[in-house]
């Protein structure tokens, strides 16, 4: 695992951050256009929107290079076009199950994991973890900076 000091900007993190910030910008415009105090349903909708933006920016920053990001992109696109049919290509789930039981659980949490063979699943997992970690860091930093700084600094 590459350890990057805060001075050295991680290129992946940079990409993730810029995409996520763009998505947040879009969301903030949407939210500001409805100034009334949000209902619980509206708050839940916004929460889901931010979360979707997080995963969407993760997937698009990585692009089609990785199986997990491809699977995420597919899922997000199908949600956008609101197709209900779900074609899960279950290739060799038994092959994974006979080896290690843990792999069964793993393929459930990694996007697209069910369609991967054991080797791919393991290498995809490593990359997925790396991206998830970076995404969490970014979101935390944004949240921290927003709460600690006054809006005048950003303006």
């Amino acid at each position, binding site marked *: 695992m590459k350890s990057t000091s805060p001075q050295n900007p991680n290129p992946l993190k940079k990409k993730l951050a810029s995409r996520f910030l763009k998505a947040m910008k879009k969301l903030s415009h949407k939210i500001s256009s409805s100034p009334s105090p949000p209902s619980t349903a509206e708050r839940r909708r916004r*929460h889901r929107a931010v979360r979707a933006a997080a995963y969407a920016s993760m997937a698009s920053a990585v692009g089609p290079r990785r199986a997990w990001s491809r699977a995420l992109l597919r899922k997000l696109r199908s949600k956008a076009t609101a197709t209900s049919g779900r074609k899960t290509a279950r290739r060799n789930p038994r092959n994974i199950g006979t080896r290690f039981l843990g792999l069964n659980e793993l393929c459930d949490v990694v996007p697209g994991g069910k369609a991967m063979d054991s080797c791919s699943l393991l290498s995809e997992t490593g990359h997925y973890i790396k991206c998830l970690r970076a995404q969490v860091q970014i979101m935390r930093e944004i949240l921290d900076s927003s709460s600690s700084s006054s809006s005048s600094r950003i303006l």
Partner: protein
Amino acid sequence: MSSRRARASRLTEDELNNLIFKLHASLPHHSNSTSDKKTSAAKILKRTCNYIKKLQKEVDDLSDGLSQALASGDINAADADTITTFLQL
């Protein structure tokens, strides 16, 4: 067909273990003393699952916080560049 599968499993048996132990390096280490050779592949996989679930939960919680911050106007996302430099990226 089955012979092909058996051949494939024999080839990647060690590779699988290597990949799993590589994965271990991506996980946050809890106690350096007990682990190393004692950590079995199954344990590593279990820890990996839990770690991913934990990270996904964090994304969820942070999304909640961020959506509320957006709503309360704490984030003036009109200038993403400012935030970018602010984050020292």
